[in-house]
Structures are given as structure tokens and as C-alpha cells.
């Protein structure tokens, strides 16, 4: 049996046993989002009120569901699954705008000069959450899930970036819309290519041993 067939058989066996792994890695992902989001808060005023916890809670649930769409062992139509993931991600992004603005949440932006320092702080926190999520997802795709193709690598990179947005929604509740667009969504846009690069590197590491050095890997990166 050639190396590529061994690789494919191993991948198929992985997809059969992916449910429990998806649950475990999903739980790790949620933990990392919550730990970064809440752990790095400066204060906990209103932090555990339902109106503030509901939007990030639903966001996190949507992101967790996305993992199951990826690791679907029944191999349903890929087009449908990718479309469903895009809908989940868009909904999660919109949810980041739904937290109610309160005096407390807007107070830190009252001196206008604090806009950019606050944005820089949030971008840093978001990057940390996204990096953790990216490592967890990359680890899962490399060791536990079936190898993702390019389309799924894009979705997984989006998932990692949105994990940062979810962590920031927990971290920085009901901020100005301009702050959400610049800092929360901005970090997701900045992190996306990095996460995709990580996925691509891990994918190359996975397929390199089954192909000879002469194979045009550049073309295979479009897989």
C-alpha cells in the first residue's frame, strides 16, 4: 500500500471517531475564549449580567457548532456545510454588536484620547485569544480530525479569528460601535491571514512525508 493510500485510510479512520474529539477540543476552545475574555478584564462590574453574557454565549455556541460541521463524519455535501459555516460566522459577528450600551460600558471612552489606547489593548487581548484558538484548531486538524482542504482551512482560520471577537465581547462589554469595528473586528481581520498561514504550514507538514521532494508542493497548497 503506497504512502498516500495509508494517509487516506488513516484520515478516513479519524473521521469515524471525530465526534468525541470535537467535543473535547470544542470545550478547550470555549475555555480558552472564556479564560482570556474574562481573565484579562480590569473589573467585573456588570460582567455576569444576563444581557451581557447572552450575546458572547450564543457566539461561542455557534463557533463550537462550526467544529461539528467541519468534522461531520457523514460527509454531507461540502458546499452546504461551508455555506452553513459562513452563516454561523456571520451571525456570530453580528451578535458582537448586540450588547446593550450602558453608562458603565461607555465610561472608559469618555476622554476621547483613550480611544486608541483602548483599541490597542483590545487588539492585544483579541490576538491572544485568536492565537490560542488557532493553536487548538491547528492541533485538532493536525492530529485528530481528517485533513482539511483549502476551503476548510479558510473556514478554520475564520473560526480562530472569530474566537478573538468572542473573547473581546466577553472582555469589553457594550462598547462604542466604532471601537467594536476598529478593535474587535480589526483584530479578526489582522489575525485571519496569520491563522490561515498556520493551517497551511500544518497541512504541508502533514502531506510532506507522503510526497517526494520533487512533487510541486506549490501547486498542492491550492488543494
Amino acid at each position, binding site marked *: 500500500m503506497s504512502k498516500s493510500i495509508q494517509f*487516506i485510510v488513516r484520515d478516513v479512520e479519524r*473521521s469515524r471517531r471525530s465526534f468525541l474529539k470535537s467535543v473535547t477540543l470544542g470545550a478547550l476552545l470555549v475555555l480558552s475564549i472564556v479564560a482570556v475574555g474574562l481573565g484579562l478584564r480590569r473589573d467585573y462590574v456588570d460582567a455576569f449580567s444576563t444581557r451581557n453574557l447572552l450575546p458572547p454565549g450564543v457566539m461561542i455556541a455557534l463557533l463550537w457548532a462550526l467544529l461539528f460541521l467541519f468534522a461531520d463524519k457523514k460527509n454531507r455535501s*461540502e458546499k452546504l456545510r461551508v455555506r452553513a459555516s459562513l452563516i454561523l460566522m456571520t451571525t456570530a459577528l453580528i451578535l458582537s454588536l448586540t450588547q446593550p450600551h450602558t453608562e458603565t460600558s461607555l465610561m472608559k471612552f469618555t476622554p476621547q484620547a483613550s480611544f486608541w489606547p483602548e483599541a490597542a489593548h483590545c487588539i492585544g487581548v483579541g490576538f491572544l485569544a485568536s492565537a490560542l484558538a488557532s493553536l487548538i484548531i491547528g492541533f485538532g486538524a493536525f492530529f485528530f480530525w481528517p*485533513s482539511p482542504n483549502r476551503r476548510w482551512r479558510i473556514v478554520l482560520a475564520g473560526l480562530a479569528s472569530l474566537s478573538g471577537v468572542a473573547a473581546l465581547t466577553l472582555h469589553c462589554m457594550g462598547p462604542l460601535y466604532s471601537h467594536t469595528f476598529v478593535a474587535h473586528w480589526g483584530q479578526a481581520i489582522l489575525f485571519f491571514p496569520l491563522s490561515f498561514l498556520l493551517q497551511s504550514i500544518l497541512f504541508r507538514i502533514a502531506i510532506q512525508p*507522503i510526497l517526494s521532494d*520533487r512533487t*510541486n508542493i506549490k501547486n498542492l497548497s491550492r488543494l
Partner: protein
Amino acid sequence: MVGYITTKKSYFNQVQDWAKLKVLYLEYLRGDAHSTSQLFAALEKALHGFFRNRVSSIVDGEDLTQACLLKIHLARAQFDLKKPLNTWVFTIARNTLTDHWRGAEPEPSTPLESFDSDQDFQEALQIPDPTLPPDLRAQLKFDLGAALGILKPDDRSIVFLCVTQGCSMAEVAEILGLTETATKVRAHRAYERLRRHLKGGAYIFILLFFGEALK
């Protein structure tokens, strides 16, 4: 002549049974490891023959086969189960070949190595048919190998897909991205060139199988 005609039936039994492979493909999608290894072993054999007809180096052919198997696996959920599997597989193979050629040094249209070493054609011709005398079979292999070497790469693909994979003209046209009429014209020209180069039995052999596919 009689030997060739009696060979025809057993030959077509040996042609890749794509309907059976499609069943294996369904099992593979359900995650059955045994069906997966069976399916990909069969695909590897078919693809190896396809690539060996198009690239000059055996090693390149093997690399392309491995890359193509990987592409099929990663695109597995994109296959429309209502469509034929062979068309989908060979379309991926053709695209893999295009990727290989992109940026690579141009290859001569005629392979550098003799087609006598082409494993797939050899296997296709090594039919366990007692009615075909060994000396006739050896002569047939030699003639066919020499004749295929003079065909253009696309024409070799047409002959390969029709003769060893049992594809119809419509399927070959879809795989190579040509119209059915253009494929038939090219097939006809390839067949004319083969006729000029082959003598007697070997030509009749090609005629029988190629003619079958042209219907």
C-alpha cells in the same frame, strides 16, 4: 485474428469496473477503511496508467499519481453521486497534469522511454486468455507500444481512456475538456495514425476496442 476477437470479451471484463468502484466510493464516504484501501488501490492503478501516457518520466508519473489521489481524497465531499466517477477522477487527473506543466520545462510530445515499459498497457494486454498465442501477444505488445509512441499526448490519453478504462467518447470529452465532436475527430485521426503504423493483428485489436468506444 480469431485470437483477438475472442480476447475482446475477456478484455472488457478486465477494464476498470467503475460501477463497482462507485459502490466502494460510497463505502469510503461512510468511513469504511477496507473499502477505502481497495478503492484507492484501483484508482492508483488507473491513474498511474493515465499519467505514464502523458509525462516522460516514470518518477514524475508516480508523483503525479500520489498527488492526484490526495486531491481526490480532499475533494471527496464535492463529488456529485449522480455523475460518473471515472469522469470526475480523470478530470482531477487532467487538472493535476495541467498544474504539473504550469511553470515546468516543456516536455517533448513523444515520450523518451518506450511504451513497451508502460505497465498499464502491458497489464491490459496480458489477459489470461488461453486462445491468444504467446508469440502473437508479444508481437501485439511490441506493435502497440511502438505505435502509441508516435501519437500526440492528448491522443494517447484518448486511446488510454477508451481502451484501458472503457470510457465513452462523451466521458473522454468531458475529462479532456473538449467537445464530443472534437474528441471523435481527434480519436479518428489517432486511429488513422495507428492504422498506418500497425500491421495486421495489432491494428485489428485497436479497431475492435476503439470502434466499441466510438459507438
